[in-house]
């Protein structure tokens, strides 16, 4: 058993499952957005804003943002443990990544509900 405290789920199994579930959510969200763009020629601000004013779209987007945050945390945490060997640099990089993910998530929520 190898101990870790900066990975998202504190367990390799939960990180692994989260990574897969979040990937499915992100794939569905991407397909939806691409499909919406393809099926809306001459898209204007009103239609785009109208889409995001609906509650279900906000919830779907929030789910996608949370999935992106979790996915990025698990993935980048893995990258840092592979390639950053000095502990100080690794922990600093992990904290910066986690803080950035937090900021982007809050920012996304403000954008979704701020309009």
């Amino acid at each position, binding site marked *: *058993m*190898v*101990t*870790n405290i900066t*990975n998202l789920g504190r*367990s*390799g*199994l939960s*990180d*692994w*499952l989260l990574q897969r579930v979040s990937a499915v959510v992100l794939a569905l969200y991407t397909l939806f957005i691409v499909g919406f763009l393809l099926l809306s020629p001459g898209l204007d601000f009103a239609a785009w804003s109208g889409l995001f004013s609906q509650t279900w779209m906000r919830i779907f987007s929030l789910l996608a943002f949370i999935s992106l945050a979790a996915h990025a945390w698990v993935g980048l*945490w*893995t990258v840092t*443990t*592979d*390639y950053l060997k000095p502990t100080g640099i690794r922990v600093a990089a992990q904290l910066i990544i986690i803080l950035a993910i937090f900021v982007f998530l809050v920012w996304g929520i403000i954008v979704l509900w701020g309009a």
Partner: protein
Amino acid sequence: MSKLQVSLYRYNPETDSAPYMQEFQVDTQGRDLMVLDVLHLAKEQDNGLAYRRSCREGVCGSDGMNMNGKNGLACITPLSEVVKGNKLTLRPLPGLPVIRDLVVDMGLFYQQYERIQPYLQNDEPAPAIERLQSPEERDKLDGLYECILCACCSTACPSFWWNPDKFVGPAGLLQSYRFLADSRDMATSERLAELEDPFSVFRCRGIMNCVAVCPKGLNPTRAIGKIREMLLANAT
């Protein structure tokens, strides 16, 4: 018939400041020799050359090395399988410390093997004759027990290169699953508890280098997938 160009990795830490490649011309007399035979011929030219070998028939797992970029056992790899353009380059297994020439320090590899407790654990009183298995239970061990611990797979795995102290590696995980799958082993939950952290099993990215190089044709990636399934079934 031109001679085979053989490029050998040489390093003697007592006399060399850095490893270097030494060129040999080996006369194969047109025969499709095994790579190990070529090493013997090169050693006749320079008997300071160091490499491990023992059974010379793919059973002992001593002569794992990197041949023209791919890990394998020198004794069962014919030249026709690896040589391109009459040139053969031999290097030690990647990722492990070199002791001398083609001999690597297998300490980290064995440490991971030891960690998975590669022995049957059963606290029940032993029956008078033996612990029986059904033919179906025995079938589950096929493709698992044949591993000879040559380290070709683990030293072909980037996840093992970056974290050899934490990631068990394909060889160790294949053996781990060999005991997880054994109907006579009673330590399944303890074994699984040892493996659920982000490194031991889950550092595997499924690139299947292990499957590509295994000289015994085994499939560690499949065993790792089975361990993941057992962990998931156990924890959800």
